[in-house]
């Protein structure tokens, strides 16, 4: 049994203590925007925010959390897709298959919250999520655009 604060709502979840947060979010809470990619915190498709910090939810058991920690998933990033990153993502047509993009956006949102004007080097150093289709340059450009810059690839 776990009590989790997800997207501003406290939910009670009947799972084993060692269930990864990812699977509780997907299978018990029913929010499937957060993806399974590797299960070993390598790819970042499962990235959510825990008190604003980008966290790879596939490798954290629900027992590590209590209801005082605010967990935000892609569905809770903004009520209507209006986060500056989501708008930049749409403006630059960033996604290809899209499977990694929830995690990318959540990682980028945590980066911007901590560092509102990241340099290219900051972005390349901080965004370590895997994309196999190859959206990296548009991801980088969209983060810059959301941060108020206009630089293209670099």
């Amino acid at each position: 049994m776990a009590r989790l604060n997800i997207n501003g709502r406290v939910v009670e979840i009947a799972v084993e203590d060692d269930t990864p947060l990812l699977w509780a979010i997907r299978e018990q809470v029913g929010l499937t925007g957060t993806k399974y990619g590797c299960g070993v915190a390598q790819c970042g498709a499962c990235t959510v925010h825990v008190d604003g910090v980008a966290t790879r939810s596939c490798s954290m058991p629900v027992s590590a959390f209590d209801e005082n920690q605010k967990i935000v998933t892609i569905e809770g990033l903004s009520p209507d897709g209006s986060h500056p990153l989501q708008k930049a993502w749409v403006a630059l047509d960033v996604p290809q298959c899209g499977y990694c993009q929830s995690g990318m956006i959540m990682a980028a949102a945590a980066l911007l919250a901590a560092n509102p004007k990241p340099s290219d080097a900051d972005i390349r150093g901080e965004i370590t999520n895997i994309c196999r289709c190859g959206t990296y340059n548009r991801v980088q450009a969209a983060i810059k655009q959301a941060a108020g810059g206009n630089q293209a690839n670099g």
Partner: protein
Amino acid sequence: MNRIASLPRRGFLQVSAALGAFTLGIRVPEAAAQGAAPAATPEVNAWVVVKPDDSIIIRIARSEMGQGTLTGLAQLVAEELNADWSKVSTEYPTPGQNLARNRAWGNMSTGGSRGIRESHEYVRKGGAAARMMLVEAAAQGWGVPAGECRAANSTITHQPSGRTTTYGKVAEAAAKLTPPTDVPLRDPKDWTIAGRSLPRLDTVEKTNGKQVYGADLTLPGMLNAAIRDCPVFGGKVASFDAAKVASMPGVKKVVPVGETAVAVVADTWWRAKTALDALPITWDNGPNAQVSSASIAEVLKAGLEAPEAAIGNRAGDAKAAIAGAAKRVEATYGYPFQNHATMEPMNATALWTPERCEVWTPTQNGEAALAAASEAAGLPPAKCEVYKIHLGGGFGRRGAVHDWVRQAVDIAKQMPGTPVKLLWSREEDMLHGRYHPITQCKLTGALDAQGNLTGLAMRISGQSIVAGIFPQNIRDGRDPVVFQGLSPGGEEGAFGYAIPNILIDHAMRNPHVPPGFWRGVNLNQNAVYVECFMDELAHAAGKDPLEFRRALLRGSPKHLAVLNAVAERGGWGQPAPEGRARGLAQIMGFGSYVAACAEVSVSPAGELTIHKITAATDPGHAVNPQQIAAQVEGSFVYGLSAALHGECTVAEGRIEQENFDTYPVMRMMEMPAVEAILMPSGGFWGGVGEPTIAVAAPAVLNAIFAATGKRVRQLPLKHADLRRA
């Protein structure tokens, strides 16, 4: 909450039946959640549905997996339809419907960069015919000749009187008309919807978590399955002890899957996986348990000198030219097994009863998925259906072989009436790929006293994808796909260099590791072999690599044009920034001409940085330039991931890499800037999803040589020592 989950199951199944095949394609969750079928609007034809509110649904037969084909194909239909683009949405017809309607939508296979290039003509005709029928219906309603009416932006105008109506108002009447037989198409130079960099139709839901992938699907009453197949190809299950896990939380059943695999079915996937990890399984590893990468390499090496080989390209007498050469150059290259590693692991949801089998799955080929489901279900195709769900990456893995669909149906068959979702773990996905074929290549070149290339012999030894997947297509031991980009001519992948004496052949050597079509297919390694060796020859001849190629490409103007474009934009011939060096590559494949100029630096400690790549593409016609640019950029991620890191090795018959920690792929930190030059010359239709991948590795390898003097001939690069000698 997932909206489907709240529906009573009975309700869902009724909806499912009422909707028939169509609306369950892309829109499964939404349509089902509405709780009732949308108003039945008759189609104008197979490709076009116009609703009374003027919204337009364009049917897309090919699968969207990120490559943008959904938007591009819709643009082509909308172009000829003279549609109001802002009112266009799309849906997938199902494979069962395609079968029932005598393949009204043609081939559903989405591979070989063929989505647009293979279907552009009939989808455009579908749009044009629908437009003609809508105009005819309006004209009949007004009692005027259709020739006096014009359609634009979903509105029909009777020009003499100025009367107007909309597509939505006449669609029902249009649907009753006889389709036209003579359907002229617009000249691409007159395009207004096609040919433009329109935004994709599927972006917004990929930024807010709403896009439903196969792995996300939930059906009422659904159970989840985790599977383990024998890690050694050719092995099977000896025994398993289901009782050991039967009482674990959520576990419903432990089932054999064929002779080679075991699955645990549970209420959630995590519980199924947890129980599977605890399940004692004994394997019979079979006849391949001693095979290793080293033993495979020995077999391939022997093939380099074997007397028997299938010929792919022959002119003159290469052996004589080499024997009489003023200078002889020889090199051997190698290319490893690689996993597709789609971000979304393989998955399918199946519902089986003795009367019917339905499967929901991300697939690049709905018809092949239907055939696989039918076989596994033991039911004729007419009693089966496949609903295509959006793909979290395909890259060829989800096209020709539907092993995961067979497994899902096999499991569902053991749970009649209950939908079961099978999801592979990443480890399962890594160990049971359909791998990029392994090959080696020995090249020998003959230079005359002036440094002209007078002969080339190229022996490829190794695996044939076609032999592994479509063995019936092997003729006289020859797999034509092995020679991608090396063929003497043709529209698919012609070898551009004019060499008077040439012999390119293949000694087929098929290890037990199953091969597959891997984005870029055989063009990937063939481009490495040819383009790196061209660089070696130029160096041996004391010539500039660009000039050396130009001389040989005089009779191949399209090959030459893309090469010249990247040389010019990439700064070839001008000094590179301090510490950097450049490399070139060009090839033709998938009907398109591509070239790249890479700019790299290598630190004294041997650390490689790829700074910038200039890439040119001539695909003939360009349907959505910004999406072509996206494919070109993405091709460097896929191609450079392969070049830098991609390798699956074999020990004791099994693949050693199980996850991204041991199978690294390129991340943003390694990504170069990419400048994509699009130069559509018109007159032909080439693909764009794959060809550029092939020039990524050789351009970088040639730049590394320019920077370090070191030739890397065995990929991936991670094994190479690039430190200054």
